[in-house]
């Protein structure tokens, strides 16, 4: 070991106090996070069901059977397809909304900056279940605000949450409303780090707003965009409360998400082995998605 490695920590304390300080958090994380992760992985290779819940002797290892069963399970494919539809649509739209809001709020010409920033951010902190309930009434086919507003444009009432075609777009719209303020704050921080001289120099050379955005803002924001992309992906793949409250996964399973399917199989029907396999598919998707984004950015 070289000594330069220790430049940053002074190595103050004794071994005894190290254990006192570190072990509570580390043990809690080990026992209630890492052990469950490993157990879930093992569980996904068993037929853990309601019988096993009563007597663990019923548990049998069944190898990859749960995963094979998933492959042939039409409901799982529907949940997978719905979740991808949600992530691929809501993800980019939400990021575009965040970036637009961030750029508008960073402009010198903007008045009442802190008021606008606050109101854009408000949906982020509020309880998802409560706002999903509010939106459920906003989407009401007869009395809802949205259809009333659209009627001014001659659009006839849409049964937002009752029509299999419109239910997912309705959830996407609500999810964008709820989340764009979060990434907006991160983009504002990113925009503040771009030196102003770059824009000034570009102006002298006759660049217009679009050129500046395309050649200065976007490339210099790339690390921020990558971070935003990954956390949005991780968050959106875990879609659950919105459909649970607004549609219960319906109509005709058009909004059933992976997490809701996992919840149903695991905690409604107590097919916990099968449910664990679903959870690991979700994890694999999130993991792969994050790696792909990282790779894509590195190749740029």
């Amino acid at each position, binding site marked *: 070991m070289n000594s330069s490695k220790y430049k940053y920590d002074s190595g*103050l304390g004794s071994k005894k106090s190290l254990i006192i300080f570190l072990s509570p958090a580390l043990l809690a994380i080990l026992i209630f996070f890492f052990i469950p992760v490993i157990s879930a992985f093992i569980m996904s290779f068993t037929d853990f069901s309601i019988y096993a819940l009563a007597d663990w002797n019923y548990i049998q290892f069944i190898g990859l059977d749960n995963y094979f069963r998933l492959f042939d399970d039409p409901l799982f494919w529907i949940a997978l397809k719905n979740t991808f539809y949600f992530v691929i649509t809501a993800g980019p739209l939400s990021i575009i909304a965040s970036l637009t809001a961030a750029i508008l709020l960073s402009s010198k010409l903007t008045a009442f900056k802190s008021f606008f920033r606050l109101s854009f951010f*408000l949906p982020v902190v509020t309880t998802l279940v409560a706002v999903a309930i509010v939106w459920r009434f906003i989407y009401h086919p007869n009395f809802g605000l949205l259809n009333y507003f659209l009627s001014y444009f001659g659009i006839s009432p849409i049964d937002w949450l009752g029509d299999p075609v419109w239910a997912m777009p309705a959830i996407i719209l609500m999810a964008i409303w709820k989340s764009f303020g979060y990434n907006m704050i991160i983009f504002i921080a990113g925009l503040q780090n771009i030196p102003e001289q770059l824009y000034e120099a570009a102006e002298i050379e006759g660049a217009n707003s679009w050129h500046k955005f395309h050649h200065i803002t976007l490339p210099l924001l790339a690390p921020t965009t990558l971070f935003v992309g990954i956390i949005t992906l991780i968050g959106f793949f875990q879609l659950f409360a919105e459909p649970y409250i607004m549609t219960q996964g319906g109509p005709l399973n058009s909004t059933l998400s992976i997490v809701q399917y996992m919840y149903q199989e695991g905690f409604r029907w107590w097919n916990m082995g099968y449910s664990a396999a679903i959870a690991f598919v979700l994890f694999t998707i999130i993991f792969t998605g994050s790696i792909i984004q990282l790779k894509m950015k590195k190749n740029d």
Partner: protein
Amino acid sequence: MISLKPKPILLNLLLIIITVITLTPFLWMVSASFMLDGHASTYPPRFLPDEFTITQYTKLFTKLNITTNMLNSFILSISVTLISLLFNSMAAYAFLKFRFKGKEKLFTILLSSMIIPSQVTMLPLFLMLKEMGVINTYFAIIIPGLANIFGIFLIRQYAQSIPDSLFEAAKIDGATDFQIYTKIFVPIIKPILVTLALFTFMGTWNDFLWPLITLTDESMYTLPVAMSNLMSEHSKDPELMMAGSVLTILPIIIVFLAMQKQYIKGLMMGSVKE
């Protein structure tokens, strides 16, 4: 910064439109919560109550026992916040100021495991807590929230700028590790502790899936679970549901408005990777 050619009017107009979109659901929620039964189910919709009433709120407090759910939410959010703040700050202190084998490696493992979605842990965690006999008790929420990696990361990130000399001086003066932690470390990291307290409080208050799984009696429900349950019986009563939503959101909005600076600052910090 950017001297945009498009006029300031257009820019501010756009911002006003976005504000209307973000705030309308909240304004309608508050307004409908003060309406009489059936008054929020009309066409064209009412934007303001014709007759201001608090019957929806009294119904929630007297008939539907929402006080219990509010109390559950408060007790759980506050206890998770206090305990995790203590454990996380102690661990962050150890990671910063103690020297031990494999420290960097351990921290990297912790950090990279943040990508694992919490749903993966839920099935075994449920079984563990069931064996411990704590399902449908406060402990079912508190135990998984004892410590978290993000909290340790955030405190460590903030405390890295504290000069070592400060701690060394105290050490020479004969202070124990525990004294250094309470008298020097904690006071210096106070700002980030406030931010982390906000995150944890709001996160626990807003959490839904885990309490939905582990709290099975209505008297144990937190507000989001109680609201979800209420929705299945009162899906035709927007006025009542809006009053419940107001009560669920109000404490969060008050806390957020009071401490938005710390919240936003922490959010920006959490997004800055080393």
